[in-house]
């Protein structure tokens, strides 16, 4: 019953994809036969400057060639998709990791102490709605390094969901369980690690999952701003080259990597989820 349902879902998904790609393919005219290039066109670097939406087959072709050699490095403006994604992932994971280092202990503190919650809440409420990219100029000025600045932007955007969810999860730990810790004479550290952390872990990991999703959204924009390396820079660079095939291909890759990040945290959440 369930099995046949999921098979049907797969069939529907595949047919939708085929129909969509088929319509797309049909609606994009085949590239015109090569004509002799005018002098102007030669100067501008070739006939490809005529921007048009590529057909799916062209994108698939590019994907195959890019993914078969994802890590080539032929100078600053020509690196494999793997290298670009690697840079973005490195920044996201670094910023996210630093944010976790701050947000988890601070969230614990806020969750445990109503006083600290009241004291810090105004700051959180003001800082949270600021677009992470708004920090970029300030970060660039103070840090004076584009690399670190984009990591900082990731840090600042991923800290809030983690902080808020940790505080929320810790504050919501059932009093009974805390009493179990108390009646067993657990110290503060033991209570934190043996009772509160496992009790709040599903909420905390949900916050981390939201954070990494936002971080992956933000890194593309941040890299478009600061340039150099990364998938965001790659997209922008290919747009400047009017290479829409590469643009669409990298859009797809951003989606795939974002999905993998989300899947990783979803399965981590599943590991710590308990049934009451």
């Amino acid at each position, binding site marked *: 019953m369930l099995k046949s349902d999921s098979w049907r879902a797969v069939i529907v998904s595949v047919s939708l994809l085929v129909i969509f790609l088929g319509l797309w393919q049909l609606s994009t005219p085949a590239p015109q036969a090569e004509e002799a290039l005018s002098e102007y066109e030669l100067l501008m670097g070739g006939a490809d400057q005529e921007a048009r939406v590529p057909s799916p087959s062209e994108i698939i072709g590019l994907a195959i060639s890019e993914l078969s050699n994802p890590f080539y490095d032929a100078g600053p403006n020509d690196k494999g998709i793997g290298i670009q994604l690697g840079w973005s992932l490195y920044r996201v994971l670094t910023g996210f990791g630093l944010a976790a280092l701050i947000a988890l202990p601070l969230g614990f503190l806020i969750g445990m102490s109503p006083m600290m919650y009241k004291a810090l809440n105004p700051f959180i409420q003001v800082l949270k709605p600021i677009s992470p990219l708004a920090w970029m100029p300030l970060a660039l000025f103070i840090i004076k390094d584009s690399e670190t600045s984009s990591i900082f932007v990731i840090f600042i955007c991923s800290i809030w969901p983690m902080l808020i969810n940790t505080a929320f999860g810790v504050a919501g730990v*059932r009093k*009974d*369980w805390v*009493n*179990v810790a108390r*009646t*067993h*004479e657990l110290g503060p550290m033991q209570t934190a690690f043996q009772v509160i952390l496992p009790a709040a*872990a599903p909420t905390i990991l949900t916050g981390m999952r939201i954070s990494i999703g936002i971080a992956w959204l933000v890194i593309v924009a941040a890299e478009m701003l600061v340039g150099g390396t990364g998938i965001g820079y790659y997209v922008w660079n290919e747009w400047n080259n009017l290479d829409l095939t590469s643009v669409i291909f990298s859009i797809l890759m951003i989606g795939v990597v974002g999905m993998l990040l989300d899947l990783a945290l979803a399965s981590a959440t599943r590991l710590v989820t308990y*049934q009451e």
Partner: protein
Amino acid sequence: MNPHFLEIKSLAKRFPAKQGELTVFEDVSFGIEKGEFVCIIGHSGCGKSTILNVLAGLDAPSDGEVLMAGKEVRGPALERGIVFQNYSLLPWRSALSNVMFGVAARWPGWSKTRVREHSLKYLHMVGLKDGAEQRKPAQLSGGMRQRVAIARAFAIEPKLLLLDEPFGALDALTRGTIQDELLKICAETHQTVFMITHDVDEAILLADRILLMTNGPQARIAESVRVSIERPRERGSIVHDPGYYPIRTHLVDFLVSRSHGLSGSANSGAPGSGHQGPPRIVDPAEAARGASSLGSPSNAIGNAVSNRPSHAIGKGPSNAVSHSTSNANGATDDRSVESGPLLRAVNL
């Protein structure tokens, strides 16, 4: 008088309320001996759980003190094991791991194998085996969860075991079997137990003494009822003990008609309300034996279960005798049928 193992001295608990404060209970004094099983019965909301939390050290009293083996109880400690009504097992740990949690906290120096073996011993003692040890609480029935909670409490070998309506959420059949197990374990270990219940029959089956608490606010402990029924007791045969129905009737009568009138708020000016110190000791079973040997079955049935106005307090043992005489005619079987609906009314 020797100091008791557990001494509760003029305990009071007040909570801040809209106007002034709410006195949940006051002037609560009693003692518990080592190895004694004491139940406390009272209507919902009279403050039983609050007393238990103070005994546990989870909550501080507003007045009075609790001494255990001469030392003041100031906070929660491993020498007092607790079982709550809602089990309070850690849901992310398996049954075995929940017990091991307690054992490892109690004996931090023990090796993992030793902790495990000790925990398994207690799980088996409460009847959890055949793979149930490895299941998470959510995959266990209510009865099994409560067994785990009891195993965890017994496994740390506390000096005092505190049980807060441990079987309240269980169906009657399960409750019966776990009561039997508790009876057996207590007989083996001579555990000192303080237990809250709202089930009169459960209290008689398990307890050496039953404390009767009046309704709140300003609740107090009105009587300490001795359950002089020989051990070992059995659920099936205890009702045939001649002492059973006198005690039962006394308890039901208290809950139905007297508990309200005796609360501090109900008669703050009346005589007897200034009553301090330990509660009056009553022994309905003994009184019934005495009365039946005197042979006065004439005025028997009638006021055993009926609603009598509160004329109880302050009359001393004579009241207990006259009260119990009415049950001493041996018509126990009839009455067990009679008191069915009444008991249900009490078991709110």
